């Protein structure tokens, strides 16, 4: 996947978490403005960017837990896990403080993860994760 493909895919819509209330109300997830989020991301300091990336990674572990918890896992589920693991592999590499990436490279990594999530059907997880990461890092620092 080249950077043009990644940029194109961030134009597709990601959505934040749906909220279910005990009285039965359901508030659908809101669209995530990826460009705004990534612009703010690039202005964060290294610690805040690490927090952002760790939130995404942590959410993706829940995605894997959800897919594999009830065997048998379908072929499609396994394929999805493979690609989620690739995302985790890259995320956990770039948050290593001894091997820091630039903010721009980290933003490109997020774009790539988004593109892969659309291609491999885990965009719901990535949208939820990015919304949480943005809400808990970019707006509070």
């Amino acid at each position: 996947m080249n950077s043009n493909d990644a940029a194109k895919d961030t134009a597709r819509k990601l959505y934040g978490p749906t909220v279910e209330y005990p009285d039965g109300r359901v508030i659908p997830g809101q669209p995530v403005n990826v460009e705004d989020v990534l612009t703010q991301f690039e202005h964060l300091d290294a610690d805040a960017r690490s927090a952002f990336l760790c939130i995404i990674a942590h959410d993706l572990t829940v995605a894997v837990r959800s897919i594999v918890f009830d065997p048998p896992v379908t072929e499609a589920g396994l394929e999805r896990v493979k690609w989620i693991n690739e995302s985790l592999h890259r995320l956990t590499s770039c948050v290593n403080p001894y091997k820091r990436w630039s903010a721009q490279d980290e933003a490109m990594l997020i774009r790539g993860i988004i593109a892969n999530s659309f291609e491999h059907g885990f965009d719901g997880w990535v949208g939820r994760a990015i919304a949480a990461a943005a809400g808990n890092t970019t707006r509070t620092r």
Partner: protein
Amino acid sequence: MQRSGSTKPPLRRIHGDALYEQDSDARRSLDYHRTRTTEEIVESLRPGADESLKVKPDGRIFQGNTRIKVLEERGFPVNDLPRDPIP
């Protein structure tokens, strides 16, 4: 335990109590969350929080197990909490 008016399936932890006896990391996590106030835990589970309460349609908890356990120990009506539903 207080009664809940929730229309959703009751929450069910996927981590049983035995885990906290068998797994020292899980035990440490439990000990940590027991030091937190109820308000802090509830806030941490809020949809949109960085480790929100993630729940399958059948009520199984895929994130927030230990915090829900602590709230249950305190008699908090956990089924009244908003949920982040997952597929």
